[in-house]
């Protein structure tokens, strides 16, 4: 019997090609979206899961009060992990890990720069990796190093490289003691090599007893079932006991964040873990479900729209002895077949668009073909979709009375329209919310991109440099300037697009007793404002020989409450310094945040970045070649690395742009699916009114008036969904915008545009269908009665 059900379903599908195409396309696109989003969600949730001690690993976070604002960071002091393990039996392992750095590897004449992490020698007590060669003892001594498979191949074309020597940063030589498999990209700790701290260096020796400065991350592996809250307290007490004096860390609080939360709950606000990426994961999980439901609703709409055709068959089957149950089963089989076909389409769509999707997300989501769970999930989606999509038409059709449907032409009643109207209204409400969200996200991004940064990022190249550069800086600068292609050159301690150091050590006469004043600082050479094209508000820019001079920005002066800042003396880092100028606020960190207080300190030898402003009309490629050759000539030992300031700045929008593109894609798809649904509803309604329209036409109605007649009720639906969706969209987007200090206010205009777009799309959809009926010969439609 099932076989004949599928047979008749197949004949129905192939007989009504357009209808089936619309139906399967809608369902297939919906399914593809859902599966793709779920793949992404699954990927986000799978972060770090390759770690064997996944359930036992915690990262330490400290919440400190800076300038009256609670800020949470994972930076903690060097001796903490070791002391924690020695003092608390529930800590099975603990390690200190740097934030990651780019290290120059030299072997023979090969030079490459790779991201590395520097760790204490108990690192493998906490984290697990697959060793290809060597074992966890590799970093017990400071002169060992662990390479990943790909790094080993890059350096030696081989993974069997135990015992080979590598020079790090032209400064320290280590021996390869182990090679591990590359970790998946979905790991919080990403590195190409693990380097142990150099225990013989003075800096590290000092750190061993330094309980004040916090520069590294700490990780703990605790016993199963440990009371984390009490361990947090114990750690804080340990820090308080060990610190020589009160500082922001001892005054603050301590938090242990489980590994399962590292990726998705990375955001802290006012000392509380407020979520983060999980909000997007949850949001898109809901979007996935909603899109699938929209697609199913479509299926229901389109299927019941054709019920006149199928009603006769139901009647016949009932007179042939079919029970309601069997008819239900038949229609469910049919929708299941549709669902399977839709999945085949979805599979093709996913297969072709996954690289594109990965490109937008900048991630490597793969289809887990080998995963049985994946296939179970797929089968669940197919069956669920089939059942949800088929249930309403199945119940509706199978309950028809044979006497009624066999008597003559069966006209579905008005009451059958109501649930479909509600469904279409809901569909449109969702689409309108998505369209509004997309527009508002784009507006916000545009708004921030057009923000006055206080300096000019155009034609500004930042070349990575180090203190060695100081020796040849003058020569490099002069030869660049002589070329005529370069406007200006200067140095800063860090790239200007990046976060700089923060200090609480600025003191001045009459300073309020505010221990929480935190100011960002950046070391720079002369003519900083000039090359950055920043505005000096008072005083002057740095010039040569300005040692012991500083420049503050407007925000810094505001929080310091200085009356006549220029000429005032401050002390910082053990030296008296004079304020030579006030610069306008510079947006260097987050473009969404309010300006932060900033201090520029004159130090021409503190070089982390070479900033080069290229002349406006010079070809970039030529200028780059010149810079590279000059750089190589005078600084041959380091590879040439550069970024464009405007590009670096634009990268700060990556996350928001991603949300924007995703919202755009899903909004377009949702509205497309909705239009298919509307198309179905319109044809259903028109089918019901063919006779009425024929009569009206005979009575002299114009095509125009008929179109109005047929469109009216649908435009009403869209109007209703519009009035539901707008407040929701407004509220949702308002709370999204609250994430940014620098943001737009939502204007009424945007909703006006959304309304216009939706209306236009609907008119086209309805018009396509209604026009055919309105222009048809009424004799035909009436004769069939």
């Amino acid at each position, binding site marked *: 019997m099932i076989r*004949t059900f599928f047979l*008749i379903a197949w*004949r129905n599908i192939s*007989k009504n090609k357009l209808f089936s195409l619309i139906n399967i396309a809608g369902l297939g696109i919906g399914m593809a979206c859902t599966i793709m989003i779920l793949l992404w969600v699954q990927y986000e949730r799978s972060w770090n899961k390759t770690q064997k001690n996944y359930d036992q690993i915690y990262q330490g976070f400290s919440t400190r009060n800076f300038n009256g604002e609670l800020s949470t960071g994972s930076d903690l002091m060097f001796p903490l992990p070791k002391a924690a393990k020695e003092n608390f039996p529930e800590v099975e392992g603990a390690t200190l890990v740097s934030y990651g750095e780019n290290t120059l590897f030299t072997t023979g004449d090969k030079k490459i720069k790779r991201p590395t992490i520097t760790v204490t020698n108990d690192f493998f007590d906490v984290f697990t990796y697959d060793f290809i060669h060597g074992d966890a003892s590799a970093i017990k001594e400071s002169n060992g190093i662990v390479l990943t498979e790909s790094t080993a191949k890059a350096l030696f074309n081989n993974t069997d490289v135990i015992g080979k020597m590598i020079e790090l940063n032209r400064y320290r030589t280590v021996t390869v003691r182990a090679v591990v498999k590359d970790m998946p990209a979905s790991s919080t700790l990403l590195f190409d090599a693990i380097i142990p701290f150099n225990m013989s260096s003075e800096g590290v020796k000092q750190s061993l007893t330094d309980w004040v400065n916090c520069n590294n991350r700490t990780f703990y592996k605790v016993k199963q079932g440990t009371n984390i809250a009490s361990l947090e307290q114990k750690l804080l007490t340990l820090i308080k006991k060990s610190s020589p004096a009160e500082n922001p860390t001892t005054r603050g609080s301590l938090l242990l964040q489980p590994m399962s939360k590292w990726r998705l709950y990375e955001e802290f606000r006012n000392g509380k873990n407020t979520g983060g990426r999980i909000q997007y994961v949850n949001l898109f999980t809901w979007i996935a479900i909603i899109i699938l439901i929209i697609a199913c609703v479509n299926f229901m709409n389109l299927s019941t729209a054709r019920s006149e055709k199928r009603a*006769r068959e139901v009647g016949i089957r009932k007179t042939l002895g079919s029970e309601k149950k069997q008819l239900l089963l038949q229609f469910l089989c049919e929708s299941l077949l549709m669902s399977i076909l839709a999945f085949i389409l979805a599979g093709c769509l996913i297969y072709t668009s996954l690289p594109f999707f990965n490109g937008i997300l900048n991630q490597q989501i793969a289809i887990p073909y080998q995963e049985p769970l994946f296939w179970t999930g797929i089968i669940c989606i197919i069956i669920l979709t089939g059942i949800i999509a088929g249930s309403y038409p199945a119940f509706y059709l199978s309950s028809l009375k044979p006497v009624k449907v*066999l008597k003559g032409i069966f006209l579905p009643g008005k009451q059958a329209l109501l649930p479909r109207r509600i469904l279409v209204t809901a569909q449109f409400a969702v689409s309108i919310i998505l369209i509004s969200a997309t527009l508002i996200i784009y507006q916000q991004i545009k708004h921030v991109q057009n923000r006055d940064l206080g300096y000019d990022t155009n034609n500004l190249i930042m070349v990575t440099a180090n203190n060695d550069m100081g020796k040849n800086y003058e020569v490099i600068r002069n030869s660049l300037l002589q070329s005529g292609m370069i406007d200006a050159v200067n140095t800063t301690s860090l790239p200007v697009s990046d976060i700089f150091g923060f200090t609480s050590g600025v003191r001045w006469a009459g300073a309020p007793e505010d221990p929480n004043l935190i100011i960002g600082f950046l070391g720079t050479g002369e003519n900083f404002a000039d090359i950055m094209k920043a505005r000096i508000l008072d005083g002057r820019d740095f010039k040569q020989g300005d040692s012991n001079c500083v420049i503050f920005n407007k925000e810094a002066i505001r929080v310091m409450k200085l009356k006549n800042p220029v000429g005032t003396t401050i002390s910082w880092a053990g030296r008296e310094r004079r304020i030579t100028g006030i610069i306008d606020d510079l947006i260097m960190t987050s473009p969404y945040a309010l300006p932060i207080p900033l201090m520029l300190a004159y130090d021409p030898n503190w070089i982390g970045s070479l900033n080069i402003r290229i002349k406006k009309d010079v070809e970039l490629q030529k200028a780059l070649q010149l810079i590279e050759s000059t750089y190589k000539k005078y600084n041959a030992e380091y590879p040439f690395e550069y970024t464009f300031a405007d590009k670096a700045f634009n990268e700060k929008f990556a996350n928001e742009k991603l949300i924007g593109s995703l919202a755009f894609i899903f909004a377009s798809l949702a509205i497309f699916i909705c239009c298919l649904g509307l198309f179905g509803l319109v044809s259903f309604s028109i089918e019901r009114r063919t006779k009425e329209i024929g009569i009206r036409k005979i009575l002299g109605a114009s095509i125009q008036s008929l179109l109005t007649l047929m469109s009216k009720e649908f435009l009403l639906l869209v109007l209703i969904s519009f009035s539901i969706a707008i407040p929701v969209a407004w509220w949702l987007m308002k709370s999204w915008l609250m994430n940014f200090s620098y943001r737009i206010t939502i204007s009424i205009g945007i909703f006006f545009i959304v309304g216009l777009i939706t209306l236009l799309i609907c008119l086209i959809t309805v018009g396509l269908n209604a026009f055919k009926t309105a222009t048809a010969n009424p004799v035909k439609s009436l004769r069939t009665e």
Partner: protein
Amino acid sequence: MIQLKNIFKWINTGSNRVFILKDINLEIGEGDFVSIMGPSGSGKSTLLNIIGMLDEASEGQYLFNDTDVFSLKEKQRSQLYKENIGFVFQAYHLIDELTVYENIETPLLYHNIKQSERQAMVADILDRFNIVGKKDLFPSQLSGGQQQLVGIARAIVTKPKLLLADEPTGNLNSSQGEEIMELFRKLNEENGTTIIQVTHSEKNAAYGKRIIELLDGRVENK
């Protein structure tokens, strides 16, 4: 076999109650061949539908082989229907998406008959009706008379005791009609199938052993 006692059927349109059947009392025995006649709107089809359990009376009692049909639950009634009744329609009502063979096979599916048996039964009836060559055609490829033949074949393939026909020849020309009526007579005489047909045509009605005339929902003579 069939006993109808004081059957009334009405529908409410607004505040008016329109009677379709008024106080029908009827007995039809096994092996009978009854023709129901009457003008349009006299209630013939409604009566046939009530006998065929597709419709319910508003009032009265219907005994089918001494079972009170109206007191049965939906499931029991459809079981009773399935086992005993076959239907033939004026508009044939074949399923367009199924071939002749599959159309005839469909009721057997609902009777849970095994595939090999089904094949035998369908082949047998195709042979009897001389339509073996048409078995893979779709209804739209057949003439009206052929479609009705398939309709009848489908109705009797399950060997029902009662065959109900609602103007079976209404859409056919006279020679096709005659062929169908001959077939009915043969079924009645050779197989002992009880037949009740609704018809406008005196000539076709005469094939029956008994004629019931309806007028405005009442039985005029038996």
